[in-house]
């Protein structure tokens, strides 16, 4: 009478114990696919000043000026990837700016183009910070290949807008004219 009860109790005990171990092991392995269900929404995008409505222009300087500095217009990076460790770096590069036949005095080499992103404006409530490289007085030189101009370090979706200050260092013999060139913004 008592014996079967005792056996039943022990069996229940060991079954309970056995059940406990695989459950713990399963929890460790994790249910693999559900990790991916959070992925799909937006990506990483960049918007730069659109010159089709208002031409992008960096102002005028008289010949003999040492430099010309002006704001380019808003650059916006939107990161909709929703990552725990959400980071991206923004880089800028430039071509030489030339006028006429692009002789030495008709050229502002890219080594003489400086870039400062400024503090940047993040949307309210975002977690993280945008750190620009360089300062207003010591902008990042676009001489090299792919200068980092700023980085966002934070958590979750984020949108950051900055209006970069572009500085051209001019030659004493710089020729008058409309100089044109290309500025590339990259985000990854």
């Amino acid at each position: 009478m008592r014996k079967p009860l005792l056996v039943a109790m022990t069996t229940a005990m060991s079954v309970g114990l056995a059940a406990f171990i695989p459950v713990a092991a399963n929890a460790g392995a994790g249910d693999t696919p559900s990790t991916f269900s959070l992925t799909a929404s937006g990506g990483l995008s960049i918007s730069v000043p659109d010159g089709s409505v208002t031409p992008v222009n960096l102002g005028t300087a008289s010949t003999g000026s040492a430099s010309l500095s002006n704001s380019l217009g808003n650059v916006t990076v939107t990161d909709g990837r929703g990552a725990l460790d959400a980071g991206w770096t923004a880089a800028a590069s430039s071509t030489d700016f030339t006028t006429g036949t692009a002789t030495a005095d008709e050229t502002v080499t890219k080594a003489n183009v400086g870039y400062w992103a400024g503090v940047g404006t993040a949307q309210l409530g975002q977690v993280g910070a945008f750190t620009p490289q360089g300062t207003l007085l010591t902008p990042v030189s676009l001489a090299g290949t792919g200068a980092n101009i700023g980085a966002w370090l934070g958590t979750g979706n984020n949108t950051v807008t900055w209006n970069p200050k572009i500085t051209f260092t001019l030659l004493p013999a710089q020729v008058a004219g409309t100089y044109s060139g290309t500025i590339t913004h990259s985000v990854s």
Partner: protein
Amino acid sequence: MRRLLASLAVVGAFVVPATPAYSATGHAAAAAANKHPGLGIQLLEAPTALANDPRARLYIIDHLKPGVTITRKMQVSDGTTSPLDVSLYAGGAEIKDGLWSPYDGNRPNELSQWISVQPSTLHLTPGQSAVVEATVAVPADASAAERYAVVWAAASIPGKGPIHEVARTGIRVYLSVGDGGAPPTDFGIDTLSGARTNDGRPEVLAQVHNTGGRAIDISGSLKLTDGPGGLTAGPFPAKLGTTLAPGESEPVTVLLDKSLPAGPWNARIVLQSDLLKRAAKATITFPSAAGITGPPVAAKAVPLDRHRQLLVPLAVLLIVLAALALLLWLWRRRRRDEDDERDPKPTSVVPAQRSATDRLRARSR
């Protein structure tokens, strides 16, 4: 129901048209474009083997044997107000001073030359998006190492002024090459030092050393305890996004509140890259002058993952003990019953009555 939703979402994330297909320029697409203005790119595929790796959702991350080829689909979208001619290509990248640093233009490195994107050009109208596929073909004679590149979508933004603009957005590629399994991810926290920024805010610098074979992206937090008057502060988030290549060592900074007293404090920092966590502690004091970094204090590693290795066996042990106690109790009861049976008692007592007498007897003892 929740599981069903999750699996539906997964299917959505994985099943994409096999050939580059253009999405409809519908109302929804335009609305989505407004949410993500500009030129956008998103990874649509991740390896199931790296399902637990959050970075694998954002970047192309893999460990491949020489001679292996993989493909990854990604979506490129035009969120501008103009039609765009997008070019797609891979460019080299490196990790420099703790920052991800892609090269300018399509300047290649070894890895970027192994990557091709199909199609290599796209024409997108505002609000439109298309799926492209990147192929990474590792040559059979590739040497074992981790390499970095970016798959770029680049477009010239139309304009009338003298300044032309190009927008580029890309997906990072962290590719480890070698035979056997993926090289281990590991890092150590060597030292902690108290410092003060130029504007007088205290900060903690944790020197992190990547001792594994893969690049790591660090995040984490710091807690201060046992300060002056028994004060406790934090947790303060670590400045995120510090990227370290294998073998590299860089400080991770944690900016603190200006009102904190100088110390000494017991600082405990927990840092994480993907699923790997490391903790360390040290006693630090913040310098009194601004712009000064105090001497680095050797950090003592605090075991973190040992907790689980300890807790699970402990729980098992407790359950076994409980089972033993129950068995012992049952066994003692049974012995007592047997003793009762040996007592000179009328055999006509029915079991129910007998147990009632047992209870009475037990109470009287």
